[in-house]
Protein backbone atom coordinates (compact mmCIF):
# COMPACT_ATOMS: atom_id res chain seq x y z
CA UNK A 1 0.00 0.00 0.00
CA UNK A 2 1.52 3.36 -1.01
CA UNK A 3 1.75 6.01 1.71
CA UNK A 4 0.11 9.43 1.28
CA UNK A 5 3.35 11.02 0.07
CA UNK A 6 3.36 8.75 -2.97
CA UNK A 7 -0.03 9.97 -4.16
CA UNK A 8 0.36 12.73 -6.73
CA UNK A 9 -2.10 15.49 -7.57
CA UNK A 10 -2.87 15.39 -11.29
CA UNK A 11 -5.71 17.89 -11.62
CA UNK A 12 -7.29 20.59 -9.46
CA UNK A 13 -10.26 22.79 -10.32
CA UNK A 14 -10.59 26.01 -8.30
CA UNK A 15 -13.14 28.76 -8.11
CA UNK A 16 -11.27 32.03 -7.61
CA UNK A 17 -11.98 35.74 -7.48
CA UNK A 18 -9.36 38.08 -8.91
CA UNK A 19 -9.03 41.81 -9.66
CA UNK A 20 -8.88 42.80 -13.35
CA UNK A 21 -5.12 43.27 -13.02
CA UNK A 22 -3.00 41.29 -13.58
CA UNK A 23 -4.82 40.35 -16.81
CA UNK A 24 -5.94 36.75 -17.29
CA UNK A 25 -3.12 35.89 -19.73
CA UNK A 26 -0.39 37.06 -17.31
CA UNK A 27 -2.22 35.40 -14.44
CA UNK A 28 -2.39 32.02 -16.24
CA UNK A 29 1.27 32.26 -17.34
CA UNK A 30 2.43 32.96 -13.79
CA UNK A 31 0.38 30.03 -12.45
CA UNK A 32 1.87 27.78 -15.16
CA UNK A 33 5.32 28.38 -13.63
CA UNK A 34 4.35 26.47 -10.46
CA UNK A 35 6.27 23.19 -9.97
CA UNK A 36 4.65 20.13 -11.46
CA UNK A 37 2.15 21.96 -13.64
CA UNK A 38 1.81 21.03 -17.29
CA UNK A 39 -1.38 22.84 -18.25
CA UNK A 40 -3.43 25.78 -16.98
CA UNK A 41 -6.95 26.53 -18.13
CA UNK A 42 -8.37 29.82 -16.82
CA UNK A 43 -11.95 30.63 -17.79
CA UNK A 44 -13.80 33.82 -16.87
CA UNK A 45 -17.13 32.94 -15.32
CA UNK A 46 -18.37 36.36 -14.27
CA UNK A 47 -17.13 39.93 -14.62
CA UNK A 48 -17.81 42.66 -12.07
CA UNK A 49 -16.74 46.31 -11.83
CA UNK A 50 -13.54 45.60 -9.93
CA UNK A 51 -13.26 41.81 -10.01
CA UNK A 52 -13.75 38.71 -12.13
CA UNK A 53 -14.64 35.15 -11.11
CA UNK A 54 -12.42 32.57 -12.74
CA UNK A 55 -12.66 28.80 -13.04
CA UNK A 56 -9.05 27.69 -12.84
CA UNK A 57 -8.21 24.17 -13.96
CA UNK A 58 -4.62 23.07 -13.49
CA UNK A 59 -3.18 19.76 -14.62
CA UNK A 60 0.22 18.22 -14.07
CA UNK A 61 2.09 15.13 -12.99
CA UNK A 62 2.77 16.22 -9.41
CA UNK A 63 1.11 19.52 -8.57
CA UNK A 64 2.63 21.38 -5.62
CA UNK A 65 -0.64 22.51 -4.01
CA UNK A 66 1.03 24.73 -1.42
CA UNK A 67 2.98 26.61 -4.08
CA UNK A 68 -0.10 26.81 -6.31
CA UNK A 69 -2.25 28.43 -3.59
CA UNK A 70 0.61 30.74 -2.62
CA UNK A 71 1.06 31.88 -6.25
CA UNK A 72 -2.68 32.46 -6.69
CA UNK A 73 -2.72 34.66 -3.56
CA UNK A 74 0.43 36.47 -4.63
CA UNK A 75 -1.25 37.31 -7.95
CA UNK A 76 -3.95 39.08 -5.92
CA UNK A 77 -6.67 36.44 -6.20
CA UNK A 78 -8.81 34.93 -3.46
CA UNK A 79 -9.67 31.24 -3.49
CA UNK A 80 -13.40 30.62 -3.05
CA UNK A 81 -13.34 26.85 -3.24
CA UNK A 82 -11.52 23.80 -4.53
CA UNK A 83 -14.19 22.19 -6.70
CA UNK A 84 -12.44 19.14 -8.08
CA UNK A 85 -9.29 17.18 -7.32
CA UNK A 86 -7.78 14.28 -9.24
CA UNK A 87 -5.11 12.37 -7.29
CA UNK A 88 -3.11 9.51 -8.79
CA UNK A 89 -1.03 6.71 -7.38
CA UNK A 90 2.27 6.03 -9.13
CA UNK A 91 2.10 3.14 -11.67
CA UNK A 92 4.26 0.81 -9.55
CA UNK A 93 1.58 0.79 -6.82
CA UNK A 94 -1.36 0.03 -9.10
Amino acid at each position, binding site marked *: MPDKQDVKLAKIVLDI*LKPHTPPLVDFAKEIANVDGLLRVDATIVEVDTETESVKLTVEGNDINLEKLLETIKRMGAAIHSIDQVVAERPLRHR
Partner: protein
Amino acid sequence: MLRLIKALLVRISRFLKYSGKDIVARRYFVLSVFDGTLAAFGIVVGANFVRGTSPATIVAAGIGAAVAMLISGVTGTFMTETAESKKRLKEIEEAMLADMDESIVAEAGSYGAMIAALINGLASFTAATTVLLPYIISLFYPEIAGIALYAAFAIALAMLFTLGTILAKVSRQNILAMSIKMLLVGLLAITLILLLQFFTG
Protein backbone atom coordinates in the same frame (compact mmCIF):
# COMPACT_ATOMS: atom_id res chain seq x y z
CA MET B 1 24.17 41.93 -19.13
CA LEU B 2 21.76 42.45 -22.04
CA ARG B 3 19.47 39.76 -20.61
CA LEU B 4 19.53 41.47 -17.21
CA ILE B 5 18.52 44.79 -18.77
CA LYS B 6 15.78 43.07 -20.76
CA ALA B 7 14.46 41.34 -17.62
CA LEU B 8 14.52 44.65 -15.75
CA LEU B 9 12.60 46.38 -18.55
CA VAL B 10 10.01 43.59 -18.59
CA ARG B 11 9.62 43.97 -14.83
CA ILE B 12 9.27 47.76 -15.09
CA SER B 13 6.66 47.53 -17.85
CA ARG B 14 4.77 44.88 -15.84
CA PHE B 15 4.69 47.09 -12.74
CA LEU B 16 3.48 50.03 -14.82
CA LYS B 17 0.81 47.89 -16.51
CA TYR B 18 -0.45 46.23 -13.31
CA SER B 19 -0.60 49.52 -11.44
CA GLY B 20 -2.37 51.23 -14.36
CA LYS B 21 0.42 53.81 -14.45
CA ASP B 22 1.62 53.03 -17.97
CA ILE B 23 -0.57 55.74 -19.48
CA VAL B 24 0.21 58.13 -16.60
CA ALA B 25 3.95 57.58 -17.09
CA ARG B 26 3.69 58.26 -20.82
CA ARG B 27 1.77 61.47 -20.13
CA TYR B 28 4.35 62.54 -17.53
CA PHE B 29 7.16 61.80 -19.98
CA VAL B 30 5.71 63.99 -22.73
CA LEU B 31 4.80 66.84 -20.35
CA SER B 32 8.18 66.76 -18.62
CA VAL B 33 10.22 66.69 -21.82
CA PHE B 34 8.14 69.63 -23.04
CA ASP B 35 8.61 71.53 -19.76
CA GLY B 36 12.32 70.76 -19.53
CA THR B 37 13.00 71.74 -23.13
CA LEU B 38 11.13 75.05 -22.96
CA ALA B 39 12.44 75.97 -19.49
CA ALA B 40 16.06 75.42 -20.49
CA PHE B 41 15.60 77.20 -23.79
CA GLY B 42 13.91 80.08 -21.98
CA ILE B 43 16.98 80.42 -19.76
CA VAL B 44 19.30 80.26 -22.77
CA VAL B 45 17.37 82.89 -24.78
CA GLY B 46 16.83 85.14 -21.76
CA ALA B 47 20.48 84.98 -20.70
CA ASN B 48 21.64 85.91 -24.20
CA PHE B 49 19.87 89.25 -23.86
CA VAL B 50 22.21 90.31 -21.09
CA ARG B 51 25.48 91.47 -22.56
CA GLY B 52 28.54 89.60 -21.39
CA THR B 53 26.71 86.58 -19.98
CA SER B 54 29.23 83.77 -20.01
CA PRO B 55 28.41 80.17 -20.99
CA ALA B 56 29.35 79.17 -17.42
CA THR B 57 26.56 81.40 -16.05
CA ILE B 58 24.04 79.95 -18.51
CA VAL B 59 25.09 76.38 -17.65
CA ALA B 60 24.92 77.11 -13.90
CA ALA B 61 21.46 78.68 -14.17
CA GLY B 62 20.23 75.96 -16.52
CA ILE B 63 21.56 73.05 -14.46
CA GLY B 64 20.11 74.69 -11.33
CA ALA B 65 16.69 74.79 -12.97
CA ALA B 66 17.10 71.21 -14.27
CA VAL B 67 17.96 69.89 -10.80
CA ALA B 68 15.01 71.78 -9.30
CA MET B 69 12.72 70.20 -11.94
CA LEU B 70 14.21 66.77 -11.20
CA ILE B 71 13.57 67.06 -7.46
CA SER B 72 10.12 68.57 -7.83
CA GLY B 73 9.15 66.04 -10.52
CA VAL B 74 10.30 63.00 -8.54
CA THR B 75 8.97 63.98 -5.11
CA GLY B 76 5.72 65.57 -6.27
CA THR B 77 4.83 62.68 -8.58
CA PHE B 78 5.88 60.04 -6.04
CA MET B 79 3.63 61.48 -3.33
CA THR B 80 0.68 61.96 -5.69
CA GLU B 81 0.96 58.56 -7.35
CA THR B 82 1.53 56.71 -4.05
CA ALA B 83 -1.68 58.25 -2.69
CA GLU B 84 -3.50 57.22 -5.90
CA SER B 85 -2.12 53.67 -5.65
CA LYS B 86 -3.23 53.35 -2.02
CA LYS B 87 -6.72 54.58 -2.89
CA ARG B 88 -6.91 52.11 -5.80
CA LEU B 89 -5.71 49.22 -3.60
CA LYS B 90 -8.35 50.03 -0.97
CA GLU B 91 -11.07 49.97 -3.67
CA ILE B 92 -9.89 46.57 -4.92
CA GLU B 93 -9.60 45.23 -1.35
CA GLU B 94 -13.17 46.30 -0.64
CA ALA B 95 -14.39 44.52 -3.78
CA MET B 96 -12.31 41.41 -3.04
CA LEU B 97 -13.13 41.41 0.70
CA ALA B 98 -9.50 40.50 1.29
CA ASP B 99 -6.25 42.02 2.45
CA MET B 100 -3.95 42.39 -0.57
CA ASP B 101 -0.85 43.93 1.00
CA GLU B 102 1.30 40.93 0.06
CA SER B 103 0.01 40.67 -3.51
CA ILE B 104 1.57 41.75 -6.79
CA VAL B 105 -1.21 44.37 -7.07
CA ALA B 106 0.09 46.22 -3.99
CA GLU B 107 3.70 45.74 -5.08
CA ALA B 108 2.95 47.08 -8.56
CA GLY B 109 1.19 50.09 -7.00
CA SER B 110 4.27 51.05 -4.95
CA TYR B 111 6.85 50.39 -7.67
CA GLY B 112 4.59 51.88 -10.36
CA ALA B 113 4.44 55.15 -8.40
CA MET B 114 8.21 55.11 -7.99
CA ILE B 115 8.84 54.44 -11.69
CA ALA B 116 6.34 57.12 -12.80
CA ALA B 117 8.05 59.59 -10.43
CA LEU B 118 11.50 58.78 -11.82
CA ILE B 119 10.24 59.09 -15.40
CA ASN B 120 8.70 62.49 -14.63
CA GLY B 121 11.79 63.87 -12.88
CA LEU B 122 14.41 62.40 -15.18
CA ALA B 123 12.56 63.36 -18.38
CA SER B 124 12.55 67.07 -17.51
CA PHE B 125 16.15 66.93 -16.22
CA THR B 126 17.43 65.12 -19.31
CA ALA B 127 15.50 67.38 -21.69
CA ALA B 128 16.83 70.52 -20.01
CA THR B 129 20.44 69.32 -19.94
CA THR B 130 20.20 68.22 -23.59
CA VAL B 131 19.21 71.74 -24.61
CA LEU B 132 22.10 73.08 -22.51
CA LEU B 133 24.54 70.62 -24.06
CA PRO B 134 26.10 73.13 -26.54
CA TYR B 135 26.85 75.49 -23.62
CA ILE B 136 28.22 72.63 -21.51
CA ILE B 137 30.51 71.62 -24.39
CA SER B 138 31.53 75.25 -24.89
CA LEU B 139 32.92 75.24 -21.34
CA PHE B 140 35.54 72.79 -22.56
CA TYR B 141 35.82 74.09 -26.13
CA PRO B 142 35.32 77.89 -25.88
CA GLU B 143 35.62 78.24 -29.68
CA ILE B 144 32.07 76.90 -30.14
CA ALA B 145 30.53 79.43 -27.69
CA GLY B 146 29.57 81.59 -30.69
CA ILE B 147 27.27 78.96 -32.15
CA ALA B 148 25.99 77.52 -28.85
CA LEU B 149 22.77 79.57 -28.98
CA TYR B 150 21.93 78.34 -32.50
CA ALA B 151 22.82 74.76 -31.58
CA ALA B 152 20.63 74.96 -28.45
CA PHE B 153 17.83 76.41 -30.59
CA ALA B 154 18.17 73.54 -33.12
CA ILE B 155 18.25 70.90 -30.37
CA ALA B 156 15.18 72.37 -28.65
CA LEU B 157 13.19 72.47 -31.89
CA ALA B 158 14.33 68.95 -32.84
CA MET B 159 13.19 67.68 -29.42
CA LEU B 160 9.79 69.38 -29.76
CA PHE B 161 9.44 67.92 -33.26
CA THR B 162 10.28 64.42 -31.95
CA LEU B 163 7.81 64.88 -29.10
CA GLY B 164 5.14 65.77 -31.67
CA THR B 165 5.99 62.60 -33.58
CA ILE B 166 5.64 60.49 -30.42
CA LEU B 167 2.30 62.11 -29.57
CA ALA B 168 1.03 61.58 -33.13
CA LYS B 169 2.02 57.91 -33.02
CA VAL B 170 0.28 57.44 -29.66
CA SER B 171 -2.90 59.20 -30.78
CA ARG B 172 -2.66 57.85 -34.37
CA GLN B 173 -2.83 61.35 -35.81
CA ASN B 174 -0.94 62.90 -38.70
CA ILE B 175 2.73 62.83 -37.66
CA LEU B 176 3.79 65.91 -39.64
CA ALA B 177 0.82 68.02 -38.51
CA MET B 178 1.35 67.14 -34.84
CA SER B 179 5.11 67.70 -35.03
CA ILE B 180 4.63 71.10 -36.64
CA LYS B 181 2.07 71.99 -33.95
CA MET B 182 4.67 71.25 -31.28
CA LEU B 183 7.25 73.30 -33.16
CA LEU B 184 4.82 76.24 -33.30
CA VAL B 185 4.22 76.01 -29.54
CA GLY B 186 7.98 76.16 -29.04
CA LEU B 187 8.29 79.14 -31.38
CA LEU B 188 5.39 80.85 -29.59
CA ALA B 189 7.18 80.45 -26.27
CA ILE B 190 10.36 81.90 -27.72
CA THR B 191 8.44 84.85 -29.26
CA LEU B 192 6.86 85.60 -25.87
CA ILE B 193 10.28 85.51 -24.19
CA LEU B 194 11.66 87.87 -26.84
CA LEU B 195 8.70 90.25 -26.47
CA LEU B 196 9.06 90.23 -22.70
CA GLN B 197 12.75 90.99 -22.98
CA PHE B 198 12.01 93.76 -25.49
CA PHE B 199 9.45 95.48 -23.24
CA THR B 200 11.38 95.07 -20.03
CA GLY B 201 14.52 96.37 -21.66
